């Protein structure tokens, strides 16, 4: 029996402008039908009987195209003590993601076909979520020599990024943008001017002043966003900016888009959920890169999400072992294990009236698919049956023992949040079901 009927949920598919209580039929791993009362029409059909269906009643639940996290760190190969492709995939499916794109800052760096193929093979063995490798822009992400984009694309990479490090060489950035665009591949930029951020561990502001921690000024991000926009405008090619954290970056991206520059951007839930005040007790779980910023930045990021300047919400899932975090603040690793809290934190944008539920789903599914050029993020008939079912009312507490990720590093531990993925379906198969 490979027919699954999702009955009576509120189906939201921004890619087709669908929002209503309907049924959805999955057959052979694909979406076979969508509409009112498919069940009855199925029974009416001479070839079908009730026994042919597995039926899930989803009254009151939201049925959405599978969520896509376009910015995840899976840590394997090289840092398996932090996360493996398996544990990361489990965390993803528990968080409601059906696809993740993983950053190349592994060891070795994903800068050649064999690492890309390894990731794809290991992900297939796990068989939980779709894993799309992002390959490095430069060999070893050292910022000197371009990787073999064509070969990496053919091996299965969907984008290029030296995430974790900025491409400091402007000429390399130019060539990468040109070369990648000829292959129809996006360049994802980690925007940071390292001469401005050097030595810093938290946002440069009142909190860094009070704590005596060296600050990272917001302009360290803005300067690089500006440079990349200027290069992208010059080459006329596509640029995607990762983890936007500052008001200045939002403004630069908005202005560029208005001029027609092909720039897209993502932010992560922590950048609209927390300010640098979260670091006040030297809490290393709130240490991220770029750092948590000020309330003015949060307001600007929300406005950027609202007006479409920021097209995507990604987790920037960065799991760490406890020993990476249980050290002096300045020595602590940066990052939040974000896959399992991303949806609930983002749903807060809907509750707060920043986004409609449709817009949120678009930013967590259709838009990342469009930016990465992957055939996902839709419930169109014939598409892969990647589906996330969300209980908007479910209230839960973020508890380290409940997290599937190996990384328990989260400043949201102990938070009570609302909204959870209760069912994650990938290629028609149920990968996670909330009990």
């Amino acid at each position: 029996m490979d027919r699954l009927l999702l009955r009576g949920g509120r189906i939201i598919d921004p890619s087709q402008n669908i929002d209503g209580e309907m049924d959805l039929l999955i057959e052979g791993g694909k979406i076979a039908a969508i509409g009112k009362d498919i069940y009855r029409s199925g029974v009416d059909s001479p070839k079908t009987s009730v026994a042919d269906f597995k039926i899930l009643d989803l009254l009151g639940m939201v049925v959405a195209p599978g969520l896509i996290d376009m910015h995840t760190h899976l840590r394997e190969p090289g840092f398996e003590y932090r996360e493996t492709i398996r544990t990361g995939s489990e965390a993803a499916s528990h968080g409601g993601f059906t696809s993740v794109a993983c950053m190349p800052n592994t060891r070795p760096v994903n800068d050649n076909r064999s690492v890309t193929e390894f990731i794809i093979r290991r992900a297939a063995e796990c068989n939980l979520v779709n894993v799309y490798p992002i390959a490095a822009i430069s060999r070893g992400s050292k910022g000197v020599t371009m990787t073999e984009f064509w070969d990496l694309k053919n091996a299965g990479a969907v984008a290029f990024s030296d995430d974790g490090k900025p491409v400091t060489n402007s000429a390399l950035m130019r060539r990468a943008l040109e070369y990648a665009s000829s292959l129809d591949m996006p360049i994802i930029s980690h925007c940071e001017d390292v001469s401005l951020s050097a030595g810093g561990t938290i946002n440069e502001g009142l909190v860094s002043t009070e704590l005596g921690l060296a600050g990272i000024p917001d302009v360290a991000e803005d300067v690089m966003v500006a440079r990349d926009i200027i290069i992208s405008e010059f080459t006329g090619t596509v640029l995607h900016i990762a983890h936007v954290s500052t008001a200045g970056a939002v403004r630069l991206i908005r202005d560029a888009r208005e001029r027609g520059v092909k720039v897209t951007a993502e932010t992560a839930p922590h950048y609209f959920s927390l300010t640098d005040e979260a670091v006040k007790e030297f809490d290393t779980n709130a240490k991220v890169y770029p750092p948590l910023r000020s309330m003015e930045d949060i307001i600007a990021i929300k406005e950027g999400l609202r007006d479409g300047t920021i097209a995507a919400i990604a987790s920037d899932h960065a799991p760490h072992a406890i020993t990476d975090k249980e050290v002096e603040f300045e020595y602590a690793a940066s990052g939040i294990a974000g896959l399992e809290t991303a949806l609930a934190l983002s749903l807060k944008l809907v509750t707060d009236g920043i986004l409609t539920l449709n817009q949120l789903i678009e930013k967590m599914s259709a838009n990342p698919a469009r930016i990465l050029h992957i055939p996902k993020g839709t419930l169109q008939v014939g598409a892969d049956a990647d589906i996330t079912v969300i209980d908007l009312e479910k209230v839960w507490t973020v508890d380290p023992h409940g997290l599937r990720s190996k990384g328990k590093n989260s400043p949201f531990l102990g938070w009570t949040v609302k909204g959870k993925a209760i069912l994650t379906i990938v290629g028609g198969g149920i990968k996670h079901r909330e009990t």
Partner: protein
Amino acid sequence: MKLSKKDLLGIRDLTVEEINLILETAESFIEVSTRDIKKVPTLRGKTVINLFLEASTRTRTSFEIAGKRLSADTINISSTTSSIVKGETLIDTARNLEAMNPDVIVIRHSAAGAPQILARIMKQPIINAGDGAHEHPTQALLDLMTIRAKKGKVAGLKVAIVGDIAHSRVARSNIYGLTKMGAHVTVAGPATMMPRYIDRMGVTVCYRLEEAIRDADIIMMLRIQTERQQENLFPSLREYANYFCLNGENIKLAKDDVLVMHPGPINRGVEIAPEIADGPYSVILDQVTNGVAVRMALLYLLTGGK
């Protein structure tokens, strides 16, 4: 009265009443240091560990003398290599120390927040002897004690703190302490050494020495780290000295009975001209004397003080 917390991590955590309690206790200990036999049995049988993971002869010696004058057993653990380099984390170190059952731990560390880590996991009281550019509470307390001894009060005084404010834990702790006690604090230094939003900490900011010290009751000069020139925080030591050195000329702008303070060690001729450092306004040696008394008071108060 007692201190409300088990640790002394920063002046920021202290109430005015607690600061007064510490200062009064310290004043009562001053007398011990003037005796022939400078020892009281107060902490006999107690163990004080001085965990100095950043070099500091002065502060360490001061704590050691404080412990010995109270008859405690003081043990010094010094290391200039960071815990990361040694491959042992601060938490490992803390668990090891805890197993030795000390009564109080004094920690100096180059990383801001390191004492907080110890305080979180250890049941023993932790005294912050300086953490990165964060706080140096015992220094601020001894400065308050010195001011009180010479001026009879702190409230209403005009205090100038001059130098590298951004990287100074002494500046931070003194800003917290002095403003809490009602002094008016002005900070001065090159703009590159002025951290963002420092004005929101309740101080006046200026960029000229002369402006800061005009009519000042107290001038606190901070030590300049010559390495900061590499970061382009100032163009040369010569230029810094020309514009920010307290000397016989510019000191005339201050009140006639101004006190000149410095946490030491001094770069003579850079922060303070020699004739001022060793002259009648200087209370730098009083600061050192009071440092022992303040540290005795804290050891006493935090170990349960009987």
